[in-house]
């Protein structure tokens, strides 16, 4: 059963079309991942689904409600965790949660009990009285997620929930997302951590330049990715020179520079390493490392978007700063 249905959704800002007629469904109880490079239209889509942006055209249905006309009804059953922690700096963690609950009409006794429960669940019970501005980044993120689920939403929208926080907090947040989903909450997740998407999501939609160019379940995506054999060589030579050298000697093989000194060779057929070693040796290129890459969702992402993950991470971190 679909809990979110999106049909021909378009969002234009003047002449610029940020979202170009996308179609997708999210099934009740699943974790749906929305992946794409910066500026692909992920946040604009989330904003349209949650009521922060008005679509130019198209249809949104959420839990049976018209998501455009009856957005206030939709907002009762959805929780939103934006890409930045946006609670009130001068209020304590506890007061922030209680305030957020009151926006949904939850009565005093219940909202205070729920706030205490969530603080405990998110290991913030000792910091409940501290002001939000005194929290670490990881703690802020956790409290923002707690605020997003204070009213027990049916659907939770998470925009980059683990970006810019420490490893341990990120791990805890992933566990919380998993627990929430196990308890029946539908999750709509955007992330640029492919591994996170691979671990958490049931299905993934890839969006590039405002269009969904691939939508499939993670299992099928991985099977597709694993039909390719990949070998990576790290050498003392320039990556683009290596690329030219390999292409000229092994026509029909796919070669791509990964870093300044390494290239990735991929093929649907089995790759013999020795001919490449010989080629490099004959050209005086020293090989530091040769490794077989087990294709993951990352390869699918690179193939679809044409964007290197490292570059994507750097872009995201830069944007956060």
């Amino acid at each position, binding site marked *: 059963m679909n809990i979110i249905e999106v049909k021909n959704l378009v969002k234009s800002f003047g002449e610029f079309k940020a979202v170009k007629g996308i179609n997708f469904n999210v099934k009740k109880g699943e974790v749906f991942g929305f992946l794409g490079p910066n500026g692909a239209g992920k946040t604009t889509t989330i904003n349209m689904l949650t*009521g*922060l942006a*008005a679509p130019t055209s198209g249809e949104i249905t959420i839990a049976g409600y018209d998501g455009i006309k009856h957005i206030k009804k939709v907002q009762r059953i959805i929780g939103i965790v934006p890409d930045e922690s946006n609670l009130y700096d001068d209020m304590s963690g506890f007061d922030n949660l209680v305030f957020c609950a009151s*926006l949904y009409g939850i009565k005093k006794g219940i909202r205070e009990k729920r706030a205490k429960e969530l603080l405990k669940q998110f290991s913030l019970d000792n910091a409940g009285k501290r002001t939000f501005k005194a929290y670490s980044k990881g703690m802020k993120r956790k409290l923002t997620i707690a605020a997003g689920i204070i009213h027990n939403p049916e659907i939770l929208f998470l925009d980059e929930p683990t970006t810019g926080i420490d490893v341990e907090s990120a791990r805890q947040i992933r566990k919380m997302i998993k627990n929430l989903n196990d308890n029946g909450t539908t999750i709509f997740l955007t992330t640029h951590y492919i591994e996170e998407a691979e671990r958490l999501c049931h299905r993934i939609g890839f969006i590039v330049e405002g269009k969904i160019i691939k939508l499939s379940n993670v299992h099928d995506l991985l099977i597709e990715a694993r039909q390719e054999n990949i070998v990576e060589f790290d050498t003392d030579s320039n990556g683009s020179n290596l690329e030219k050298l390999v292409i000229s000697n092994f026509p029909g093989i796919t070669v791509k520079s990964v870093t300044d000194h390494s290239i990735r060779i991929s093929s649907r057929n089995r790759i013999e390493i020795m001919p490449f070693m010989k080629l490099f040796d004959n050209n005086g290129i020293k090989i530091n490392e040769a490794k077989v890459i087990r294709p993951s969702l990352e390869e699918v992402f690179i193939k679809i978007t044409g964007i290197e993950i490292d570059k994507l991470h750097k872009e995201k971190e830069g944007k956060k700063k």
Partner: protein
Amino acid sequence: MNKILAFWSILAKDMKNYYLKPPNISWGIIFPVSWTLMFFIRSNSDVDIRGILPGVMALSVLFGTTSMLAVTITFERRSRSFERLLLAPISLNLLMLAKTTGAIIIGIINAFIPVLFASLIIDLPGINWLLTFAGVVLIAVTSAFLGLFIAVSASEVFEAQTFSNFFRFPMMFLCGLFIPIESLPVFIRPLSYALPLTYGADMLKHSFNASGSISPLVSLLVLTGYSIALFTISTNNIKRKWIY
């Protein structure tokens, strides 16, 4: 019930987080005292406290309310906590009423601080308190909605401050508080009658000294019209600019 709870929570949060902070409380006291002192110095120690009260009250409301609301909303927009309110299941009108009510209440309190001080120095007989209260409430509502209008137009806190002054200072000098409107050049007078503070100050002049020149009913209608117009324009601008 749910809506009332959300309204009350937003109002209580704003009062606690912004309006009842020591700088705002001290501003509410210092501002009218400074104005009174200014009139005192100007009039060579013979100040007509009752005569200046309508002006001091009107300016206390205008200055307190407009900038406070403009700054708090712009600040919340910058920190993105305002998004949280926009995403709450309450209507935009109710949300903006909740946001402005705090400023209105503080504006009303600010207006009566000079009255409190004055009552310690002079007797205040023969004042139409109902009309005074109506005038103060209408000035506070109009000023708060003007602050809202400014907040929607500004994207930075300093912009909101500058923009507030752009409206406040002309109003201060052209509303008839310092210079009677009849004494202003003929070509400026229409501008005076276009300013909401002119009508609020006139209502207060009526209630304190029976010296107003516009019918209180007309002032009431004009200020109500201004309030509705400013609120409607602001909420439409929010829909257009913030729910983009």
